[in-house]
């Protein structure tokens, strides 16, 4: 049983790229394309979700992702509630399920969830009332599917055919929910070649089973690449003895104009943000002509509008069925 898709094959929750086929992913991208027009108009609202209540349920601090979800919901005319549930509140004895029940009682239609535990969005979707849709805004090191979809959207706007592309993901693959979702989405969309680049300490076990090639050196990894995605490096990786220092990381894996020369001449550079300048890449690259980083941010709103409206449509149908 696929929790994410309803009996009509439509998106019900958006928990992971895992389990979704090319048709649904393409549908999301096409829908996002139509909303991209809306966000570029002077009046940026559509009334699709008027009267609906969306709760941003963030158990992990986040400004950027939460803000784009909030903006996406508001542009769809929904009412938005932001809940930042600190870890301390849940350690007071209130379980995740208690929190959920309380919010359900406020007649919520959708949860947008970020949580430190892998599988948290899946858990919430399993235990919510049937009319509620759940969108995963990042669960542990599992998946961050809306980020991956906005990345796919960005790639599709710049490149033609996924089958022709070589896409490289550089950085902390082990802890990255973004990387997992990207790999799954790229594969579902038929990408020609996917590579990951990192030292052994940041590569998860048997990653090749997800359909990627593993490189430990940046130069070989980005050779002839069409798309280079740099991941954010968290400071705590140094304390965990996964890396010696930021300095050495930048020496080996930092993207510079010089190094970028081995990639295709029209290669684009992406980053889910926020960038550590001088760690993942230098400012010349981040602000240079190849960089599409700021476009990613603006496309993020259209993609999230698409996912929210699609999942809500399925949810409302179920609500109608219940009341009959």
């Amino acid at each position, binding site marked *: 049983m696929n929790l994410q898709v309803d009996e009509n094959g439509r998106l019900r929750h958006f928990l992971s790229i895992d389990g979704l086929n090319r048709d649904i992913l393409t549908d999301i991208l096409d829908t996002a394309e139509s909303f991209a027009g809306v966000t570029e108009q002077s009046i940026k609202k559509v009334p699709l979700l008027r009267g609906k209540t969306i709760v941003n349920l963030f158990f992990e601090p986040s400004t950027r992702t939460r803000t784009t979800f909030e903006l996406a919901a508001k542009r769809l005319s929904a009412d938005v509630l932001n809940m930042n549930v600190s870890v301390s509140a849940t350690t007071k004895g209130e379980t995740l399920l208690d929190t959920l029940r309380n919010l359900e009682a406020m007649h919520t239609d959708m949860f947008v969830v970020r949580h430190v535990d892998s*599988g948290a969005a899946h858990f919430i979707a399993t235990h919510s009332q049937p009319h509620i849709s759940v969108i995963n805004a990042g669960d542990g*090191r599992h998946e961050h599917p809306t980020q991956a979809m906005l990345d796919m959207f960005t790639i599709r706007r710049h490149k033609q055919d996924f089958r022709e592309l070589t896409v490289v993901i550089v950085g902390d693959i082990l802890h990255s929910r973004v990387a997992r979702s990207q790999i799954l989405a790229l594969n579902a969309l038929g990408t020609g070649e996917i590579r990951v680049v990192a030292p052994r300490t940041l590569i*998860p*076990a*048997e990653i090749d089973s997800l359909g990627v090639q593993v490189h430990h050196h940046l130069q070989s990894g980005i050779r002839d690449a069409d798309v280079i995605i740099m991941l954010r490096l968290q400071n705590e990786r140094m304390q965990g003895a996964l890396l010696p220092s930021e300095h050495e990381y930048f020496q080996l894996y930092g993207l510079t104009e010089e190094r970028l020369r081995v990639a295709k001449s029209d290669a684009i550079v992406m980053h889910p943000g926020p960038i550590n300048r001088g760690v993942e890449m230098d400012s010349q690259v981040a602000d240079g002509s190849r960089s599409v980083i700021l476009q990613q941010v603006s496309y993020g709103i259209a993609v999230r509008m698409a996912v929210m409206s699609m999942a809500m449509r399925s949810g409302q149908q179920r609500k109608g069925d219940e009341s009959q």
Partner: protein
Amino acid sequence: MKMRISGGRVLDPANGIDENLDIFIGDGKILAVAAELDGFNAEHDIDASGRWVIPGLIDLSARLREPGHEHKATIESETRAAAAAGITTLCCPPDTNPIIDTPAVAELIQNRAEQAGYANVLPIAALTQGLKSEQLSEMAALKQAGCPAVANVGPLANTQIQRLAMEYAQTHKLTVFINPQDYWLGKHGCAHEGKVSTRLGLPGIPVAAETAAVARDLALIELIGVKAHFTRLSTLRAVRMIARAQYDGLPVTADVCAHQLHLTEMDISDYDSLCHVIPPLRTQRDRDGLREGVKQNVIQAICSDHQPHEADAKLAPFCSTQPGISALETLLPLSLRLHEEDNLPLSETIRRLTSGPAHILNIDAGNLSPGSPADICIIDPERIWRLDQNSIQSQGRNTPFMGWEFKGRVTHTLYRGNIVYTLD
């Protein structure tokens, strides 16, 4: 009471018996296993025709949650469930609260079990005080108080303490139970490190967490010559290392949890928290290796690793749930299934649940010898049944086997000559 179990197929691997015989019981002991016993007048007769009659099962690892975690289960509730599962002897690991590191706690547990009267509970004592790996526990006094073995659960970073504790245990002829998992390699993990953990984004526990611990402790066992028992193996490689050590003449034995012989990492694919166990479910190859270890007698016992929980303990995202399965009532069914699926001879299957563990504990149980306590389990081998909310007896309902259909069911359990369970 004088009792006769008549007409059953008696399976007693310890005595090499597999034939239709009657069992004669008096004063809580077995008087004879024979066709007839002159001058015996039974006050009670159990008709066991068409049934198997085997020694009561011995479970080397069952958490009963008392003292300290009575909201999950009690000695009374879990020994009653054990009786329904044909288990008449259970070993309780030392991580109760308070920890089993004083005779008082060991005696408390045995007294509670005695009061309940369903099964014999043997407390496994802590190897070090408070399980902290700092000071030795009073092993002589703990042995005196009825603990057949000592164990360390949890972190054991200090190899010198481990060595000294093993030497002290050997001084008192206590078997050391070793639950092999390197603390640091396993610390943050909740699933087997491999394909599935990578896909689900779950922190992994590598195979090396188990093999590094086995290798270290085998080196110490070789140095000291202490009798050691590796509990709850999960990897093919560890089975091979222990087989090699046994071949080299080291005094080591091993057990495996019944669920490890049937489930693999694939079973956590949907973040099924009921399959969250430590050591984690591993690959098909590991599962097959464990089965082979059981077949080859590298693994002499199958245990339940019973860990009953309240419902809330499993209602959270996978890694935040408490590990463990409520497993008493699937110990025999899963072992019989192994017999059916894997052609493990029936007598060997029974041996892994009776005389195998008895030998590891060095106790007089797990056999039907005249003079032994009349701990007996009677099984209807043809009875098909389903584990469900109505049939489960344990206070813990946390089992991934809920809804499974099994063939072969316990119809009677006798503990010290008393009928402590009847099915119908």
